[in-house]
Structures are given as structure tokens and as C-alpha cells.
């Protein structure tokens, strides 16, 4: 059973109390830095920031509904090879899960980091966050949390929680060493800290936290939030599937695609140094284009768009954590996360695989059993 503690929110301000909590970590000698979402000076954007100076932890704002990128990619950069110091990384659940997948793919490690995961209330699309935050940067996060915790998904009558977040059921930070909880808490007064791993426990002890039980209504709150999101997710899947259930419809769904590959750049688990679609494999000869056009009468240019997306499904849907960065990144507003998560739910179910669930679970395509999936094979005598 994990050790838990309740941290008081000083001045009824979650953000400042979080800042002092994390600052106290930097005091511990083995922690060299903290990487956490911090509000940028302009006030209307929040970005992961690597801090070593305790003085500069003030702007920490992990609960802000801003999600400009999936930080797993950043953690990967920090941990691919030894960094020479331990870093506390503050991550959303989907970032932790993506990081776990990247570790399996040898793109990062758990070695020199302590993951401080947060209960995730969700986020807006980048452009929506700007709209939302610029109204009152100082209070935006608190305003958002209050709204979400009371069941709202639309704010100011104009901005919605992103589709990925509304469909997300992984709201608590599984896989974190230390979990920062807000669900079921009176966030004006306190937040929950729980040590989930040995590493987390060591830090928990170092920080001199007092062991206290989590409030009983926490589980209940999470369950009811998950139920709402589950419902949304299922409706979203159904809707998406009905829009893409033939090759023609799929092509129409993806018709805005211009081969910019932003989605894959934004994707935390698309780890290839360079996507195969930009390598010489797809460097077609001019005569090939003509041949295609001849055969079908006409051919949409640029080519290889549907091919690209389906291939991406094959490459990363098993590792897809549903963070929604693909949609966020698309310049032509293709609802990608809807499509990806709908497909991923099928592939992950096929292998009973849940990305980010455990480091021990091998990526399904790297292993096999001699006796399995007989249904895939057509047997004739």
C-alpha cells in the first residue's frame, strides 16, 4: 500500500503551495533539477521548463489546461543517455504512459528521473487555451479545475476540453513515483501526495511528509468522472467509425492531409528519427505517379496520405496513449485523435495490451508465443 500524505494549500492557493512543495525537493541533494510545466512570462502559455534554481520554481503550473506538447518526448531527450543528475519530472498520466512506451523502445530510461505525476483534469487545444488563459492568466488554472471538477467541459461558452481529454479514462498518474492528487480533494485546502514506488517513497520520506489517508470520496469522484468520459469515448468512437468505415469515407475523412507529418512529429510514441514516409522508400520516380494516374484515371496529389495514416496505425496504435497531440498539431484540423484512438482501442484489445501499463509488458510485436492467435490462421486439411 502506497504511503499517502495530505499537503495543505497555503493561502488557499494550489499553485503557490505546489511551488513550495517542489521547491522543497530541490533542497534534497540528490535532485538536481525539476522539469515541470511553467507559465511563461507572457502568461498565456505554459511550457515544460527545466529548473535548477529553487528561486525559479514559482511559475510552476502543472494543472493548467495547456498541453502544447507531450512531455514524454522531452523526458526521452533527458534520459536517453546519462544526464549527470537526477531530475524530478512533473507529468500528466498520458505523458507518463508515453514515456513508459518510449523506455520499452529504448528511447529513454527511468534511471535518473523521479516521476511526479498529476491527476489530470484535461486540457484545451493550444489555440483554445490562449483564448481561455488570456482573460485572466493568474486565476485561469484554478477556474478551470473548479469547472472540471464540477463536471463542466465547456468554458466561457466557447472553448471545449479537447476531444482527447474528454475521451480519456486514464486520469490518475499510473506509473508515477510520486502522485499529486486533486480528485476528491478540496483543492483550495489541500492536495494529495502519494508515494507509488520505492523511489517515490524514498523522496516522500526525505521530504518528511506525514502519512495521512486519502479522503474516502476520492475513489468515488474518479469513478464518476471516468464513467462520463467512458460514455463520451464510446460515442466518439462510434461516430468516428461511422465516418471512416469504407476506404472512400476514410479518404474523405483524411482529405485535408498534406503530408506535413506534423501529427507524427507531435506524437510522443512516434519515435523514429525520421519517418519512413520521408525516406527514400517513398521517393517515387516521376513515371510512377503517371502510372498510378493512368491506372485509376486520376490520382490525388500529394499521394500516400491514406497510406501514411494507416501505416501509422500499424506502427504506433499499440503504443498510442490517446494524448491528442496529433489533432493539436494538424494544420488542417483533421480530427486525428478520434480516428487514432478508435483504431488503437481495437489493436490494443487484440493483444490485451495497454500502453504505459507496465514496463514489464513487452511491446506485442517484439514477442510471440508458439501457441496463440489460432483464429488468425486459416487452416485447411
Amino acid at each position, binding site marked *: 500500500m502506497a504511503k499517502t500524505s495530505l499537503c495543505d494549500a497555503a493561502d488557499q492557493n494550489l499553485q503557490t503551495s505546489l511551488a513550495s512543495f517542489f521547491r522543497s525537493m530541490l533542497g534534497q541533494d540528490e535532485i538536481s533539477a525539476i522539469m515541470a510545466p511553467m507559465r511563461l512570462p507572457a502568461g498565456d502559455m505554459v511550457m515544460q521548463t527545466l529548473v535548477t534554481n529553487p528561486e525559479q520554481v514559482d511559475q510552476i503550473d502543472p494543472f493548467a489546461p495547456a498541453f502544447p506538447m507531450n512531455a514524454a518526448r522531452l523526458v526521452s531527450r533527458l534520459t536517453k543517455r546519462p544526464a549527470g543528475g537526477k531530475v524530478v519530472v512533473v507529468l500528466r498520466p498520458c505523458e507518463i504512459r508515453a514515456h513508459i512506451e518510449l523506455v520499452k523502445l529504448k528511447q529513454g530510461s527511468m534511471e535518473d528521473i523521479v516521476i511526479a505525476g498529476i491527476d489530470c483534469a484535461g486540457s484545451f487545444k493550444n489555440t483554445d487555451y490562449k483564448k481561455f488563459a488570456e482573460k485572466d492568466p493568474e486565476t485561469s488554472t484554478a477556474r478551470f479545475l473548479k469547472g472540471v471538477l464540477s463536471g463542466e467541459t465547456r468554458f466561457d461558452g466557447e472553448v471545449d476540453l479537447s476531444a482527447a481529454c474528454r475521451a480519456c479514462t486514464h486520469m490518475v498518474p499510473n506509473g508515477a513515483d510520486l502522485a499529486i492528487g486533486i480528485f476528491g480533494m478540496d483543492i483550495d485546502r489541500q492536495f494529495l501526495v502519494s508515494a507509488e514506488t520505492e523511489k517515490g517513497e524514498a523522496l516522500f520520506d526525505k521530504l518528511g511528509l506525514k502519512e495521512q489517508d486519502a479522503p474516502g470520496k476520492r475513489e468515488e469522484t474518479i469513478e464518476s468522472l471516468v464513467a462520463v468520459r467512458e460514455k463520451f469515448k464510446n460515442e466518439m468512437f462510434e461516430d468516428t467509425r461511422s465516418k471512416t468505415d469504407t476506404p472512400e469515407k476514410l479518404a474523405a475523412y483524411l482529405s485535408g492531409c498534406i503530408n506535413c507529418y506534423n501529427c507524427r512529429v507531435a506524437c510522443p510514441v512516434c*519515435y*523514429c528519427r525520421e519517418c519512413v514516409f520521408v525516406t527514400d522508400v517513398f521517393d517515387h520516380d516521376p*513515371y510512377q505517379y503517371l502510372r498510378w494516374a493512368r491506372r485509376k484515371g486520376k490520382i490525388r496529389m500529394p499521394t500516400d496520405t491514406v497510406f501514411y495514416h494507416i501505416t501509422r496505425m500499424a506502427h504506433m496504435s499499440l503504443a498510442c496513449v490517446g494524448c491528442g497531440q496529433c489533432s493539436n498539431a494538424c494544420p488542417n484540423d483533421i480530427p486525428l485523435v478520434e480516428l487514432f484512438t478508435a483504431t488503437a482501442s481495437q489493436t490494443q484489445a487484440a493483444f490485451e495490451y495497454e500502453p504505459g501499463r507496465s514496463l514489464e509488458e513487452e511491446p506485442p510485436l517484439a514477442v510471440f508465443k508458439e501457441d496463440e492467435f489460432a483464429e488468425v490462421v486459416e487452416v485447411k486439411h
Partner: protein
Amino acid sequence: MKPKIGRALVVGGGISGIRAALDLAETGYGVTLVDRAPHIGGVLSQLDNQFPTNQCGMCKMLPLVERDAGSQYCLRKGLFHENIDIRLSTEVVGIEGEAGSFMVRLREQPRFVDPEKCIGCGECAAVCPVDVADEFNAGLSERKAVYLPVPHMMPNTYVIDPAACTRCGECVTACPTGAIRLFRQGRQDFGVLVVDDEYTVRDSIKEWLVEDGFSVETAGSGEEALDLMKKQPFKMMLLDIKMPGMDGVEVLKKTMETFPDMAVVMMTAYATVETAVEAMKTGAMDYLMKPFDPEDLVSKVIDVYEIQEASRGEEVEAGAVVFCGGTEGYDPSTGKNTFGYKKFPDVVTGLEFERLISGTGPGGGQLVRPSNGEPVRKIAWIQCVGSRDLQTDADFCSGFCCMYAIKEAMLAKEKGPEDLDATIFYMDMRTFGKTFQRFRDSAEKDHAIRFTRGRVHTVYLDEKTGKLMISYPGENSQRIEEAFDMVVLSTGQQPAGGMDKLAQTADFDLNQWGFALAEPFAPSKTKREGIFFGGAFSGPKDIAESVISAGSASLCASVALHSAGRGMAEVTGDAPEYIDVSIQAPKVRVVLCECGSTLPGGIDMKAIAADLKTDPVVENVFTIPRICTTEGWDLLVEKAKAKGYNRLLVGACMPYAHARRLKELGEKVLMNPVLMEVEDIRAPAFRYADAEASYIQKAMERNLRSGISRLRGVDPLPKTSVPVARKALVVGGGIAGMTAALAIADHGYPVTLVENDPELGGNLNWLARTIEGYDVHAFMDSVRQRLEKHPQVTIHVDSSVMSAFGEVGNFFTTIETGSQSSVETLHHGVAIIATGGGEAPANMYSHGENDAIITQKELEQKVSDKQIDVTSMDTVVMIQCAGSREEPRNYCSRVCCASTLKHILHMKKENADLSIYVLYRDMMSYGFSETWFTEARKAGAVFIPYTVDKKPVVSVPGDGSNVKISAYEPLLDANVEINADLLVLATGIVPSLPESLAAAYGAHVDADGFFQEAEPKWRPVDSLKEGVFACGIALSPRSVTESVATAEAAAQRAMRILTKSALSRAGVTARVRQSLCSLCERCIDVCPYGARSIDLDLQKVIVNAAMCQGCGNCASECPNSASVVDGFFDGRMLDMIDMVIE
């Protein structure tokens, strides 16, 4: 790969012959592989499924390093290797000379179909009027006199069966390429002299022969005949034996003096048959018994004529000869008990069963009753048909029938209806090989196969039901009758036909069972130096044992060649310098074969050419009438010589057959052969025989386009190679390790031998003699002394491997010697694990509680040391399988039963009155040790079977009286109480291979702690990790001689690598495009050969080109084509897919 001067001859193209030939060829020798059949593969060409996978997997025998030197396709389709010259339908008729320089006389049977011209179209078979039993289907179907010996063989050329062919000539007319010749024309030049004192006889013979086109002279006496011979040449003489004056034998003698090549056939009456047989020793070719059928006589003359005219004799130089002649299946119809075979169609042999369920079999793989085509619901196997049977002169166990019966029963379960009932009637289930026992257990438990102990004596037909009735003794010996739909006779192996003659020709001896006689402790050696045996030629063997034996034989041959100075000198110069085309844009030249206008009408080659030319990558398209002819090939060479292109596509038939020639062409025009492809344009005409010409033409175009697409993407890389440290390390100094070390050292390569103990020898230190009576210590000493004196051998006793790493060609092993820890690191190219094993601990049957309870090893030692006085004893009990063949040691230790027999015979010799009881589960007296089993019984030992659930009970009385053993005797249905002076426990063998040692070399141990071989049948001494081999007991329990065989086989596998200074990269090999690689290591995980590793310093994934086999699992696992397989680049594959879709 360049052939070496050293050349060996391998006789027999079955599994062991292929293994031996490949081993020698891969080592670098030239090999002539002959088989008297018109195909290679032996019986394996007829078998689809092998235990334990119940599939095939034979291709795993093909070369793994220097793969491109050999064929890379299904081995059952055929085989080629640069260094192997395969001669089919050929026999050895003489071996002169000595080891290192034999002259071997070969005779090829008449070849009526020119394989160079035959395109396998089958027009000949379509017109052939003859139907005979098809041996490929074990006689279950029919074929024509002109036929394909194996339907899936490559190249698929027809042959004529001279015995069945009537020489009607229909096929000659039908053949579109003029490939068939029947040699009728030359008959008038073939002079036959008929010598008989009876005018009517000689005159009618003359008449018959003249009618068939021969020119004939007659002589009425010997003197007249000799005169005639002086005047004109004759090729053949038909000679009466009994003549007044000079008799036939004398005429023969005189004739042989002046005309030794004359084919003489003696004509004899019954009374002089013996004289005729004698005459054959004088030089007569054959004899005919009077009165004879004119047809027989004429066909005999035709045979002789054709052999002389159409068959080619040849002398081949060979430094060593390896006989891998295999065995012959027992034919139950010749036995005293036929079990209804050949009488009831539903009684079949094991081989026939395999054909019945084969996809290429007579019924297309359906398991149905041959009598009526109805499904088989109940089927029985009868074991030991033609084996373990003194009545058929087979006092030996064939050793493989138990396993094939289990396999077949499992296959029947798979192919038959769900409720199929399969029963095996047996006496002892001889599951003595590695994993065999678990296989049997699984058959019984998981597949519900019924095992019934008891020998079936009769199979008869119930006329009313049409079922086969089997009667057999039940548990209480009551006679049980049971009805079956089909009965399979598990027929054993017999010495191959013509063994006597061959033994005489090659000058080796036969053993008492009629197989080739091997020397003591030298399983592959004959009495004649330079002549060796592989496979079942010297005794029944299963596939794995045959493969090991072939390895042992090829090693011996290699030593013989090497010591004759024929080893390593290379024949040809350097590899050709191909023109570098890497910076040129691809330009494909296409040359199409018109196939001698045998393609279906309406196909427009010009239109095809025009179509291809629309692709800008195509430089030009030419057509040639027939590429397969010499003129055609010259035309192709001419076309290829003209410059202006950098890739060549040939559209022809039989791409397999051309692959080799393309290599030659490449050397001629200095073009890398990977830039050349042969695309099969004839296949569509076969495959879619009923389709319209326009369709076939389209298909041809499609094939060519995909060929163009493949060539477009080819990017020949500079050949990289893996350097080899030409040294070997052998871990373990028992007989296996010593033998392996010596074998490698004898080839002139340095070997280091590491042994834990302070002394070499391992188990041989306590083993005194073998069951055959051979002196083990003398043998051990001779090996040890040679080893200790050998300049190439370094011995580290009292030493162990501390750590090791590396890959084939370059291993680094740190050895620690003594407790003082002197440490040394070795750089070596191969590692052989020979860590052996020892007797399993006796923790059962009250061992240790009483001095009268001892293990087999203790018995052996006590007998040697004379600590046991058998003469003062009354009763000895031996319990077999003490702790063996049940979990957790669920394997047979193989040597204990033979040991028991050895001790019985020894003790009985010392004390004939001694009562000996053997409590056993299944006596594993496989092979010739069955004879010792018979002897032991004859000596009076009583054998009582027990089962695991009714084990014997041993009680040790406190009063010092005899140990009591109580056992259930099933036939008497009673418990037997025995008071024993001595109780001997056969506890079996456990390995002593540390898992960490195997792991250090990238190898693994199996569930029982033995070395995990790459493949139990096809690669029995290799690990999956190239360059690591194992032998002796480290592999699995085995006898001294069997250990020697594995050691020699392992050494031979190692020699393939050590004989090269570097291992070159094959055409289809994976590589990493480093700029794209994200180092996710998924490719490392999926590589089955451990050929990939990550270099942490360089931050690169490295592919060992010698270990990579080009399977492409890495490439399809790699999401962004950073990992690619040469020849299968993704861009090219996608383009090909595109090309073939209309």
C-alpha cells in the same frame, strides 16, 4: 567460394549424403555426389513430416555461412552448391588407389532424356502408353515409363525408366525440344556373337535379335567363336556353358584375356547354374537360364547395348570416399508373417502411410482407406515389423520406427476425423533420443493415442464389415480381437540392396547384421583408409543420428584429404572485379527467351517487348530463340557483352537452373550477378494452361515488370566480411572434447582444450569396456597421448571458463587455471562445448542404506577393481530408469540399458548359476544392442516390466539379511518377491553444463540442462548462434562411440568456419541504415540468430553479416526501414506490389 584441390566422393544422396557433401563443400573441398536414383533426397523426398515438429524443416541443413555458394530454396526441390557436382542415376563400379588419391570408376545409367533440353512440359508422359507403379508414392499410384521422379524437383526434368520403357518412340515424336533419344539407331553396329552347339538355339536367338535391329553372328563351338572374334569385333557374346570340346567357361577365360571389355552372358541349364555363378567371377556379366523367354533375352541384350552406348562411364579422382548409401525398407510381403500386407489394401507400411497423407501423395493428402476411399476412424500401428525378429534375420532394432509411429499417429489425429482412434501395438517403446520420451508422453496424454503392449500376430479381413481384424494378447494374455479401418506396419530398416557387391568393390567389411562394419570407437571408419561411412549405411539410424554420422564421416574424409596434402590450396584466382554501377542511374536490358516457340500460340513477344519499353528504366528488349541451348546461351552472352545498360533481366523458364549460369555470365561481363535476374515467363503458360493467350501474355508481362522493378531497386554494396580468428576453443576434456580438439588440430588449426578436472578423459576414466568388449582405457590413452603430443593443441587442465563474449569468428574467452587463478584470455573463432555429464545421483530405492544397493557406475568400478565377487552371489536385481523417464528427469539416458546387458553377460560368464532379474520399463536396446538383449535373455536373465505407477519396492532388512525387492509381474498378475545379494540402480545421466557457460557464448540449455541444439534433426550439434557447437553428453546422453560421432560432427561444423580467413556477406543479408536508426533495438529482439547487437560506444546497431540469414524479420519490425534486407528494399517491394496489380 573457391573450390579446393581436395575432392571427395560421396556415394548416396539421401539425408546423410547431402549432409556429408555439404559439410565437405562448405569446408572448401570439391565434392562429387552420386546417387543411383534419378533424384537426390533419398527416402526423405517422400516424407513431408518429421518428428518432433511433425513438419519438414530439411532446408535448415543448407549452408548458413557463405550461403550464396549453395541453393537457397526448399531442399526437397533440389540442391546445388558451387563445390558439389551431383551425378544422378550413377553407381560406383570400382575404387582403385589409396587414401588421398583414389580413382573411382562411375557408371551412369543410360540417359534417354537430355536434361539440358527438357523443359518439363510433360508432353512425353501424355503420350506414353506404359503404366507402372510409382515408387515415389511407394507403389500406391501409377506413373508412365517417362516420368518425373519427384514432382517438386528442380530442375524438373523427365527421365525414362529403361525397365518399363517399350522403346515405342511416341515420346520422341511428342517432345517439343527434341530432348529424348532412345538409341535404336546404333543397334546394327552392335555386334552380338551367339555361341551354342545346338543349331536351333543359336539360330532362333539370331532371328530374335536381328528382328530387333542387332547384327548377329553365330558359332557352333568355342573354337569357332574364338576364330570369329579375331576376324571381327563384337560387343557382346551369348555363350553356352555346356559344349563339346572347349566348354563355355574356357571360352570365357580366353575371351577375357584378349577382350576384357566384352559383355558375356552365359547360357546355362539348371544343372550348371553353379558353374554360371562361378563364371561371373571370371568376368561374365550375367547368365540366363535355359529355357528362356525370347523377350527376356532380347531385353537383356538391349540393356547391355544401352549401358554400353548410352550410359557413360567415367573415372573421378577423389581423395576420400564417403558411403552414405542408407538402408532399405523392409518389405513385409517377403516375410513369414505378412500381416495381410499386399493382400488387404488397407494394410500399409509406414512409408506408404506417409505417402497417403502427403500433399503430393496419391490421394492428395486425404486420410482415407485405400480399399474404398472412406474416412479412417480407427487405425493401428504394429511395431517391429521386420525388426527385432530373428525369423527375418533382423536381430536388431531399427531404432526409428517407434518415433515415426507416434508421429504418424499424431498426424492421423490431425488429418482424420476428430474422434479418430489411434493405437500403437508395441513391445518396448524405444524413446531413447533427446525429447523422445516427452513426445511420447504428450502423444498419450494430449493426443489420446493408445499404447498397447503386445505383439500382433495376425491381421485378417472381416468379409462382412470390410474391416481389418487384429488379434493380440491382452493384459492377462487373453486373446483380444479388434476391428480397424487401417493398419500401418512399422517396417524397419534393412541393409541396402547390393551391399555385398559394394563391400567387395570398395573393400570394406560387413557386420553380422549385413550393414557396413565400422572400426571400434570410430563410427565412420572402415578398415580401408580413406573410405568412410555416413548415416544408416553402417546401422539403422534416424535423421538426427544420420546427420551426426554424416558429419563424423565428412570430418574423417576431411582429415584424410588434409593429410594427403589436398586440403586448402585454392584452385582459381581472385574473385572478379565487377564494374561499379552504384553511381549510375538504373538501365535494365531485357532478354526474352522465345522458348523454341513452344509457348502457346497467340503470344506476341513483340507486343511484350513494346510494353516493357514504355518504362523509362528499360534500356532495350531483345529476344532469343532458346536460351537453354548452347547457341542460345552464346547469343545471350553476346547481348550481355554490348554496353549501354547496368542491369540485366532474362525472361526464360526455370530460373533456378539459370542462377548458376548467371554467375558465370557475371564473371564474363564483369557484372555483379545481383544485377541480373531470371524471371520465369514460362510458368504462366503452365499455371494457367486453360487460360486465353492474351491472359498468359499479360501474366508474362506482369512477371517481367516485377523483375524490372526488383532490378531497379538493386544497389550492390561492397562485400563486407567478418574476419575469422582461426583458432578453436574446446570446453571439456572428456572423450568428446578430446576427439573434437584432435580433429581440428589435425587440420592444422590451433586448439585450446579446457578441462575442469586435473586429468583429461572424463567418464572414460571409470568406464572399463564396452558391451562389444572394446577396451575403453586403451582407447582413451591413445587419444590422450596423441593430443598431448600434438603441436597445435594447448591443454589447460584444472581450468575453467571465467567469462566469454563475442560472435562467430571472434570470441574472447577468459580461462582461469587452478586455485591460484592464473588467468588467460583467448581470441578464437569457434567454440565447442563438450562439458559432458555424469551419472545421476541415486536418491531412490534406499540407495545408501545398504552396501548391496549400488548404481551402475559403482558396479562398473567394483567389477573393474574386483571388489565384487559374482561367483559367491545367488541373485542380482537391476532396476532400470531409476529416476529417469519421468518428471523432472523425463528423458531416456540411453546408455543404461546397454550397460545392464553388458553387466548381465559379464556376470553370467563368471557365474552361470547367478539369477539376474531386470526390472525395466522399456528396454532401450536400440540398434545392434538388441542382439545383446537376446543374448542376455538366452543367458537366463529374467526381464520383468514395471510401470511408473507400479514401481518396484525395495526394503532393507535391519538384520543385515538380503535386500528385498518386490515387483509386480504383469503377465503373472502377481507380485514377485526377490531376495537380492546385489541391487543395481540405473539412475541415468545428468549433464554438467553450467547455464552461464552456454549463455556466455549466446547458446542455451534445454529444460533438462543439456545444450539446446539449433534444430534437433537438421542441426543437431549446432547452436542457433553460429560458431558455437556442442558434442558428447553435453548434447544429450550417449555412448562412447556415439560421443565420438558427435565430436567429429561438431569439429566438422567448426571447420566450415576455420578454413576461411573471413566469412563473406551473402546477397540477401540485412543491414542498418544508421542515419535512420533510432536504436530502439526491436530488430535485435526479433533476430532469431542473435546476429544483431548494439554497440554502446558507437551508438549503432551492428549486424554480423556471417550470422544474418536474411529472413527480414528485422526489416518488417523496423518502422522506418532503417533496417533493410538487401534484395528486399521496401521501396522496391512496394513498387513490385504496384506492378502486379492491374
